[in-house]
């Protein structure tokens, strides 16, 4: 509890642009503004064919609403600052990196190779050092999943090194 209070005070002493509430609100507003600008590029239905409201009207209203509510959230946060979040640990960034590895491997090599790579990477960095368990999560389990989806449910997976061998 003492630590939390110390963190809260530290947050108040921070310049506003370093505070979470400012940065989060700013990101939401900037994205909403970008999307709002995008809505002006939507095609317009000619008046003779238009029935009811234009296709851009509903998303526009929603985005304006989001911006107003975000400003309100920020205003309320200036009265009652948000709790300061702990710094994210290395394991989080490594898991995020594993997502990236999965995307790259499955795009360039093979979908199941991507799953295997992520499974082994995550399991290892989360503390599993035993080879037998790494093989279980990285190879045996993905094979079971593949067989289930491919043979029982008749699913066709995207082409890749391993799937091409299997399908040929």
């Amino acid at each position, binding site marked *: 509890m003492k630590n939390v209070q110390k963190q809260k005070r530290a947050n108040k002493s921070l310049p506003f642009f370093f505070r979470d509430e400012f940065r989060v609100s700013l990101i939401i507003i900037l994205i909403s503004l970008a999307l709002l600008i995008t809505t002006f590029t939507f095609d317009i239905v000619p008046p003779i064919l238009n029935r009811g409201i234009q296709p851009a009207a509903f998303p526009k209203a929603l985005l304006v609403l989001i911006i107003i509510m975000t400003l309100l959230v920020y205003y309320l946060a200036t009265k009652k600052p948000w709790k300061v979040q702990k710094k994210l640990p290395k394991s989080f960034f490594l898991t995020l990196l594993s997502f990236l590895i999965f995307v790259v491997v499955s795009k360039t090599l093979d979908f199941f190779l991507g799953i295997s790579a992520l499974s082994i990477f995550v399991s290892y960095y989360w503390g599993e050092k035993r080879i037998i368990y790494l093989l279980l999560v990285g190879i045996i389990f993905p094979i079971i999943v*593949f067989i289930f989806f491919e043979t029982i449910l008749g699913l066709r997976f995207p082409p890749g090194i391993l799937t091409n061998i299997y399908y040929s």
Partner: protein
Amino acid sequence: MDNLLLMMAPLFSSKLLLVLFFGTLFGLILGVLPGLGPTTGGALILPFTMTLDPLSAIVLLTSIYCAGTYGGAITAVLINTPGTPAAAATCLDGYPLAQKGEAGRALGMATVSSTVGGIFSVIILVFFAPMLAKLAYEFGQPEYFALAIFGLTMLASIGEGSPIKNLIAGAFGILISTVGKDFMTSIDRFTFGINELTEGIGFIPVVVGLFAMSEMLTQSTLINQVFNRIALKAIKLPSKEDYKKTWKTILRSSGIGSFIGVLPAEGGTVASLIGYSEAKRFSKKPEKFGKGSIEGIAGAEAANNAATGGAMVPTLALGIPGSATTAVILTGLIIHGVRPGPDLFREQPDFLYGIFGAMLIANVLFFIFGFFGAKIFARITLVPNKILWPMIFAVSVCGTYSLNQSIIDVWIMLFFGVLGFFMRRYGFSVVPVIIGLILGELVEGTLRQSLVIFDGNWLMFFTRPIALTFFILSLIALAFPLIRAKKIKK
């Protein structure tokens, strides 16, 4: 009495019992797998049903429907990943309870309330099908719009975040539902030149991303923490006290689910969200919702399974599917030469009551599988995270891909996983996003169609009695938490 005997017919046919057993088991497996579900399962099995007689075929499809709807709760409780969209609300309290080491209690409650909800709706189906079908017929676009608004009133009170943050998340969910071709004019919205986005963003990639992938990222921040989980508690089932506490919620949600299910194109997902929201509204301890409330699980699960029977009403009585899965069942009926409609009740009562009986038995069967399997399923929570989460990732990715066999769905799932993690980190609940996404299409679609009908006159909404009733209910629903909060303060 004759109808009751007709309903019991499947019990005396070994072939139908075998079909029911297989359908229930298959439905459970499909329900457990994220991305798959009774709709996909029904569609997959549809060609196979051609080898069966019409009653066996429809019994197979309905048993998959009942068991698949329940099966979604198992993964929702154990790994925070709803196996079916209808189980999204079950995550809210099921997973926190499992995290406390009480997975067996959560699963047991989900099983019992699903069974009661399912059986309740079949009883409703038997006695009130023709009458309810007529009521559903009264629902036009303005009434659906009012119903969707009623559904949106839960946004402010659902989840743990502040009401304004919930509303922002809900508006974002509705915004996601606008991605793709506009249904009225076919104009592209937020597609950014990506062809795959013209169909819109699917529900499954968003749900699996926001719940499962974001949870995986959350777990990655906790790997150095030591949890003192009491292993034995994980396999403990609900107590008598739990049932005493929840029977009213189960009955209320069963009624809500049956009614929502009757409305064409609604179904279990909307029913479970409204069932959950109403359970919270009526609860003596609403502050416990989202933190492992047994009432929350009961409210959501009874409603989504009650919607199965409800959804069969317009399907059988009017030939209008009450949900995505009943659309598959309707296809099954048509390809087997059965013409759904009011005449079906008069001309083929044996066939019709055979289906009702099969649904009843399917509910009992999944109760047996679920209740006695709960102790086994609950042990999943005891598997170390370093083994469990890579496996969940593999199943989630394949399940999401399987929906449209589209790799972009997998990327969308990962994107929402990262987004969900940061949303939760900064106090934005992910649940309103799901609600917004579910109701978004309904809100915009019915609003625009109503305005066309009313020639742009917004006031016309208040001239329709059913719509007006829902608007009044929405106001009451919004005011109720405020009034109660004031009472508690006093």
